[in-house]
């Protein structure tokens, strides 16, 4: 049992670390804009395609591409919000929700048109190296990705907690009108938050692709995982999102172990439903 359980849990934690980046981005967007960003999974998919293109066509290692992809995705997020989502929704919550849905539909299918539905993956120099940790045979890529995820999460924390922009974002999240009185422009902070949240998916994309595949439908897979993490941790709580990500990673992994490849994935939506029905504030959320 231990020989089976330990690797599953370990793999879950390692994957969860990368999920955390996705969830942190989603939490940031929810905390500041107070909307559920339906486009988040789609953005991650775009990021993954970006990484794939760099790796497959230009031979650039995903880990090396991290700063570039992160910045590029951030720019895309900024452009999407200021150019499309913001104007279209005119600030109404329900419209914002539908606008992010519209973006996700457009890009999920747009990418399908551009790249076809085929599944792609990459092979790096370390693709097949593994490391022994106890009874587990852990792919090196997963370890490296986890390490990078921690670093990026730390950078994100530093940005939010220590920089002036980060403080402005937090002010807008708490009280937009008050922030306006202090000279901060909420509309600009919304764009920044959306951009940073999207940049997180860019970073996550670099860390996922070495161990994962990409096709235009992959956004749908990740969006539910991201939502589950965010509600499990507590909407709006960063610590919760980080912790929830590790937990969901483990849940997903154990699901595969005990329920098999077909039925295993059901634990994620089930967790999501259960949390919302029975503990809507999650583990760390505020009521």
């Amino acid at each position, binding site marked *: 049992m231990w020989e089976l359980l330990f690797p599953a849990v370990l793999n879950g934690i390692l994957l969860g670390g990368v999920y955390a980046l996705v969830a942190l981005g989603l939490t940031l967007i929810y905390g500041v804009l107070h*909307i*559920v960003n339906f486009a988040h999974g789609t953005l991650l998919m775009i990021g993954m395609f970006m990484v794939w293109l760099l790796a497959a066509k230009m031979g650039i290692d995903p880990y090396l591409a991290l700063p570039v992809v992160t910045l590029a995705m951030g720019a895309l997020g900024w452009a999407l919000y200021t150019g*499309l989502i913001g*104007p*279209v*929704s005119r600030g109404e919550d*329900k*419209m914002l*929700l*539908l*606008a992010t*849905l*519209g*973006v*996700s*539909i*457009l*890009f*999920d*299918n*747009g*990418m*399908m*048109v551009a790249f*076809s*539905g085929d599944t792609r993956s990459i092979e790096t120099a370390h693709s097949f190296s593994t490391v022994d940790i106890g009874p587990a045979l852990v792919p090196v890529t997963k370890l490296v990705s986890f390490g990078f995820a921690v670093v990026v999460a730390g950078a994100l924390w530093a940005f939010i907690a220590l920089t002036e922009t980060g403080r402005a974002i937090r002010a807008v999240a708490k009280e937009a009108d008050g922030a306006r009185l202090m000279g901060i422009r909420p509309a600009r902070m919304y764009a920044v938050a959306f951009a940073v949240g999207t940049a997180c998916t860019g970073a996550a994309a670099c860390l996922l692709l070495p161990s994962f595949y990409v096709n*235009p439908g992959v956004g*749908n897979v990740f969006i*539910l995982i991201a*939502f*589950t993490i965010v509600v499990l941790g507590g909407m709006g709580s960063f610590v919760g999102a980080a912790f929830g990500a590790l937990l969901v990673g483990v849940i997903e992994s154990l699901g595969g172990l005990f329920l*098999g490849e*077909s*039925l295993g*994935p*059901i634990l994620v*939506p*089930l967790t*999501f*439903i259960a949390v*919302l*029905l*029975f503990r*809507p504030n999650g583990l760390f959320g505020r009521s």
Partner: protein
Amino acid sequence: MKIAGIVALVAIALAPFLSTSQAVANMALLAALAVAGGQAWNIAGGFGGMMSFGHVAFFGVGAYTTAILQTRYGVNPWLTLPIAGAIAAAVGFIISWCCSRAGLQGSYFALVTLAIAEAFRILANSLDFTRGGLGISLDLNLAASNFQFSDKRVFYAVALIVALAATLVCWWITRSRFGARLIAIRENPDAARALGVDVSLTRAGALALSGAVTALTGVIYAQVFLYIDPNIAFGVWRSVDMMLVALVGGSGTIVGPIIGGLVLHLLSEGSRELIDIPGFAPALYGIVLLLIIGLLPGGFARLRHA
């Protein structure tokens, strides 16, 4: 103006019967199913304000109910219509009731329905009972008594009847006590409560009704194409389809989903003539959704007021 509109709609509805092309009949019946699905979504989402992102769950329940009842228990396909409707109604009622108990509204409700639909898909993909990823094939047995027709125009007639029934339900909502209460809940749940409206019960009834009608479209689909699998039955894009038909046409109106169904279906068929790459038509749907939100949030049906 209204009479001209009704005449035009009747003409459009009857036109496909004049053509002997099976391709035309196929297109017509898919359009009718789209309208029916949109009207069904409209019941809960438009009039009730319960935006469901997982409505395909009801479609799949309908499709799998008929497929399983026929292949495992030899039940006559016509009989599966009311059974599928009843099961879907129960599912809808339970989902809404649980969400009401947990205080889930708005975005949270939308997400929960999405998760439920996904859970159903995974179940259908994993259980022997549903034959997993293989899907279920229905035996070809052309006979009116077996709800299979060689001329697709008959299927179109059935789909048209369901679309009409769904539209009548929406019309009934605008004229009944139940509907008035449902709409009041959409506008202001607390005010409705203060006036004696049982919000949980009314919402549950709306989702049950909506689910039942959606399930009927699932049954018809299974009978027309004689094959379903977890992706056909529970694929997420069908939820989006239903929602868009209602939103684009005008949610919360009687004629909205009809317009929406026609517009979107024409768009998808037309775009397929131009560029036949998978994903092109749905991508256009995304653009249409963004345009509608930005320019015409009330949908085409409310063009006069815009």
